[in-house]
């Protein structure tokens, strides 16, 4: 018996990604160089960490708007502990713990209290951002020592540390979703929750677990973010959840019907990464890059609804 396989299809997003790559190779002189492409990978790695759980959350008809803020809070906690001289493993464990607590809280609000996910996680966004602001008084946390930046700047066979982390995370999520019994339940949670409950599966527990993964991966992302910035900032990751939502949606995961596609989310993350980097290379200001991502998700949904209507 197998889980729903990742379907073998060439989605519209793959064409879009190819077009973007060709466009930026032709018009952005520094785009298609090895260092820059590694740069795209590094920039995309944090986003992938968020997009993986976001895929599971969206395919269970949910949403997590708090991921960016939770990542910011975890990063601040990590940085503050390092400044105090806490060892890196202990500080990282605390950051993961903070993320996990927020993930569980999100899950309980959505599953136990049956709150609409976007409002529950929007409230948690305020809570996480608020705690980060109160802890830091709105200031950057600097002086985190050299231990974390040293790990972050590691390379493995020439591949940057953050890309290795992202690949491992993808492998774990792919295995979980497509090769375990729990993964099958995730599909059923979005598509046929009733049957799951009738079959005696503790559906609520799995549902909370999916949100837990969102918080956990936000804590994981905080490690890379703090390494990249060599410090913490309370609002550093605000809005990154939007990039993750966009990546998942343009990657072909549907907002309903338990229809998720993990490889598509990777393509979505790369598309967002290539778009941002390419516009950057062409000296388009970062504010307009954000606007272009907003446009991207609406275009993707539009194409999707047109296809659905025909």
């Amino acid at each position, binding site marked *: 018996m197998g889980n729903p396989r990742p379907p073998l299809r060439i989605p519209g997003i793959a064409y879009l990604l190819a077009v973007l790559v060709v466009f930026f190779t032709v018009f952005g002189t520094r785009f298609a160089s090895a260092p820059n492409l590694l740069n795209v990978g590094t920039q995309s790695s944090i986003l992938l960490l968020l997009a993986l759980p976001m895929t599971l959350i969206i395919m269970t008809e949910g949403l997590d708007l708090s991921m960016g803020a939770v990542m910011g809070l975890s990063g601040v906690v990590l940085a503050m502990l390092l400044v105090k001289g806490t060892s890196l493993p202990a500080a990282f464990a605390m950051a993961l713990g903070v993320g996990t607590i927020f993930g569980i809280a999100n899950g309980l609000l959505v599953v136990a209290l*049956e709150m609409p996910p976007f409002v529950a996680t*929007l409230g948690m966004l305020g809570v996480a951002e608020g705690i980060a602001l109160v802890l830091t008084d709105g200031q950057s946390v600097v002086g985190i020592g050299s231990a974390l930046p040293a790990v972050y700047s590691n390379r493995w066979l020439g591949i940057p540390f953050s890309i290795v982390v992202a690949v491992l995370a993808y492998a774990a999520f792919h295995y979980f979703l497509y090769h375990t019994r729990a993964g099958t339940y995730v599909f059923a949670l979005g598509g046929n929750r009733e049957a799951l409950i009738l079959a005696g599966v503790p559906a609520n527990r799995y549902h909370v677990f999916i949100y837990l993964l969102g918080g956990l991966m936000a804590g994981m992302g905080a490690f890379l973010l703090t390494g990249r910035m060599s410090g913490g900032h309370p609002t550093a990751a605000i809005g990154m959840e939007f990039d993750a939502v966009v990546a998942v949606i343009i990657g072909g995961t549907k907002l309903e019907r338990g229809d998720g596609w993990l490889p598509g989310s990777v393509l979505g993350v790369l598309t967002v990464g290539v778009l941002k980097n390419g516009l950057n290379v062409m000296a388009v200001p970062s504010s307009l890059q*954000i606007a272009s991502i907003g*446009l991207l*998700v609406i275009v993707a949904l539009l194409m999707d609804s047109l296809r659905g209507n025909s």
Partner: protein
Amino acid sequence: MKARIAGLMLLGIVLAISSPAFLTVTNLLNVLRQASLIFLLASGLTLVILTAGLDLSIGANLGLSACLVGFAIKSTGSIPLGIAAGLACGITIGVVNGLMITLLRLPPFIATYGMLWMVYGINYWAMAGNTIYGFPAEFRAIGSGYALGIPIPVLLMAACLIVGGVFTRYTTVGHEIYAIGANAEVARLSGIPVRSRLILVYTLSGAMAGLAGVVYLARLNSAEAGIGDPLLLPAIAAVLIGGTSLFGGVGSLSGAWIGAVILTLVLNGMNLRAISGNWQPLITGVILLLAAAVDTAARKRNEARA
């Protein structure tokens, strides 16, 4: 509604006891003036949420509208032209939201979420980190002036409350908005033009964000790209505290007014006790979650009874 009024009174009594400065006409008018900004945003949002929709773009909309007003007044010197530019900006964003949700059938929270970041990006790009400040006194009066001894924003709020209250309570279109939120399919089958009503509520939501942008700019006397960003959460919180259900069909503008005043009292009370503004997102987030929890619990109770 009774519970909310009681809560408001209780909050008022606690604040009056804890600070003698609270129960003065000046301070109460000040609270109302602060509440008016949140109410203007929350009133348009209430209409949207009554239809079981959501508009996440209002904060960003307010920011862009305010900056546009500032730019227009600075470059043309005409106050009416500036105000018109702000309202037009708000309305345009609202119309586009409405079209995306009705014609393209995008889910409201995703369509307006995409709009949020588009408007945000355009605004930060256009402002390029600059601040536009120093406006003529006649314009600033909209935010900080008085008429008949009452702050002008409070008069605007009262006008909105009365016009909006009559609109939702006593007009056919108002009743249709409730009907759509209660059950869109039934509303459609009974001949209500659902699409045009939805476009109307998102347009009104955008227009109110534009108006709030005008008032806020007149009060602050300076515009920068980020001014609307922190206002989304309080606006949603005010609507929910006021008893408007996220699931549509239940709620009122007077509720949103009480919600805006309660929220302002809490934030104002923190201000009086010199608690740092950094606490504001945390407190607002917690209040939002509490209000949403009450709303969902009430819905569950109703379902159990039905």
